[in-house]
């Protein structure tokens, strides 16, 4: 542990253990490190391949789970790097730098935590749920349709929303609509005078905006986990910034990925102009 109490970061040569699909386009990669790892839900690792003429930069993947020296990641192929990761087979080497970034906090007191996950934004919130989830907390996951949902990873407490009611298994329920709409419908309005809860969201930008709006309508704080292209992943290159409300630039890799949505300049985020 470092002086700040977060798990210390390690750079290691890891070995792929397994790499298998859990939905139409989500895969889980498990790697083995030389020793056990500690992490906090919301943290990520930079993965890359040995060899200077492979990827110039690693790929940031959110940590789904750790068991001893085994670390798993949930990811989707979106480009050259993730395509290369998707081709990793058991026994092949992969470089690991992590855990990195600011995590979601552990729950405090009795106040309820509402998790809103969209698509490949699931791993930090699923990791949080598995470590901290309590009776008063609520977990929502949204996807395009049933084929996009990694059913085997989600216990029945997760409420599923889909854009289209296709590919749904007979044994599981899902609502049609946006994940934020399902959440509002299920939870209703908070009781007057009740202790405010906390919304924690990770997913596509429109979903993060909707989550922020939902939390604001309840006068709850909202934490979002943001995604940006990264260079170093460990805070030195300043390549992965997003606009802060105070005019500063926030790094997704070090200030984030988990940020209080109140510190983000949402008008500029995702379409920052010169």
């Amino acid at each position, binding site marked *: 542990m*470092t002086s700040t109490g977060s798990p210390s970061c390690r750079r290691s040569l890891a070995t792929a253990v397994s790499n298998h699909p859990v939905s139409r386009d989500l895969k889980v990669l498990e790697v083995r490190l030389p020793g056990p790892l500690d992490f906090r839900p919301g943290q990520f690792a930079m993965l*890359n391949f*040995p060899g200077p003429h492979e990827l110039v*930069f*690693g790929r940031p993947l959110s940590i789904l789970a750790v068991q001893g020296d085994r670390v798993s990641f949930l990811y989707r192929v979106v480009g050259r790097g993730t395509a290369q990761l998707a081709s990793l087979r058991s026994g092949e080497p992969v470089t690991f730098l992590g855990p990195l970034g600011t995590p979601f906090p552990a729950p405090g007191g009795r106040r309820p935590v509402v998790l809103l996950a969209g698509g490949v934004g699931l791993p930090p919130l699923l990791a949080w749920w598995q470590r901290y989830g309590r009776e008063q907390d609520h977990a929502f996951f949204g996807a395009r349709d049933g084929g996009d949902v990694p059913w085997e990873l989600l216990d029945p407490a997760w409420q599923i929303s889909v854009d289209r009611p296709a590919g749904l298994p007979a044994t599981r329920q899902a609502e049609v609509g946006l994940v934020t709409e399902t959440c509002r419908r299920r939870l209703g309005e908070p009781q007057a005078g009740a202790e405010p809860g906390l919304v924690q969201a990770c997913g596509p930008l429109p979903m993060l905006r909707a989550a922020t709006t939902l939390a604001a309508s309840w006068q709850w704080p909202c934490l979002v986990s943001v995604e940006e*292209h990264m260079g170093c992943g*460990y805070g030195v290159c300043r*390549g992965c*910034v997003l606009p802060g409300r105070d005019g500063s630039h926030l790094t997704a890799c070090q200030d984030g990925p988990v940020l209080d949505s109140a510190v983000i300049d949402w008008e500029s985020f995702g379409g920052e*102009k010169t």
Partner: protein
Amino acid sequence: MNERPSGSDHTFPPDSPASEFSCPQWWQIDPQAPFQLGPRQLPGRIWTASGCFGYGLTGHEITGDDHASPYVGLGAVVTKTLTPEPRAGNPMPRLVELPVGALNSIGLENVGFGHFLDEVLPALAKQQVPVIVSMAATRPEQFGVMAMRLQQAAADVSCWHGVELNLSCPNIAEGGHDFGSNPDTVTACVAAARPHLGDRALLAKLTPNVTRIAPLAEAARAGGADAVSAINTMVGLEVDLVSGRPILPRRTGGYSGPALLPIGLAMVDAIVREVAIPVVAVGGIATPADALKYFALGAVAVQVGTAQMRDPFAAAHIAASLRPARR
């Protein structure tokens, strides 16, 4: 397994222990031994390049399989470039990965010189990280003012070894690249800083975005530089085919990474052959073999840039790998 060429040329740090790299017979210098650069003795010859390792790792720690810290064996950390006032830097996107390099347009984002002197340098001094302070300005006389302030604030900081004048950042509209391609301004900038630096080393970082680089090295020498750092990034552009527009908001950025190695080697060779000034080589170094090629041409030290962003132990691995074999 991935199909990868074998051999030292392609061994990327630090996936193989340093002992696996065998130095050629002609290499007899210990890069972790102190060496003289102008008025200053530097603790080693493998440095990290400006902009690629922050201001060092202030505030967090990283351990590796083979090294306790990324600082092990490093001769210097060249800081992210500091400007007289803080800069927010350029809008996103700032970084584009390409097949053999990266295009960046960070825009000299930095905490500002005052904050660096008050907060960052003392933290580096506490950890005894060997530091070269990179600075940029828009007028030659500002380099003199910054050098004076640094000398006043850090005269007692023994791990501060020198300054590197960034005369070549292509990502800011004023100063920067245009500045550094004119030999007269190069001389003026170096001459402005020199009188204030005492026994600290003064380096000028040169732009490769010129027809001939040697005249710039000569201009730096004439101004009183102890060494030149060569090369900075090359101006490049990438197009987004969906929109049909350049990806970077400012159109061009600085191209770095493995693709720069042969270009850097040619430019360093030109300087070594034409100008009597020590060269600290930077450009495309990712492996011990890459660094050795620059040393073979006569570089006195090397800096690891983009590879350090990829792997915080890249420079430490090179420093460990280049210890010559005992005969």
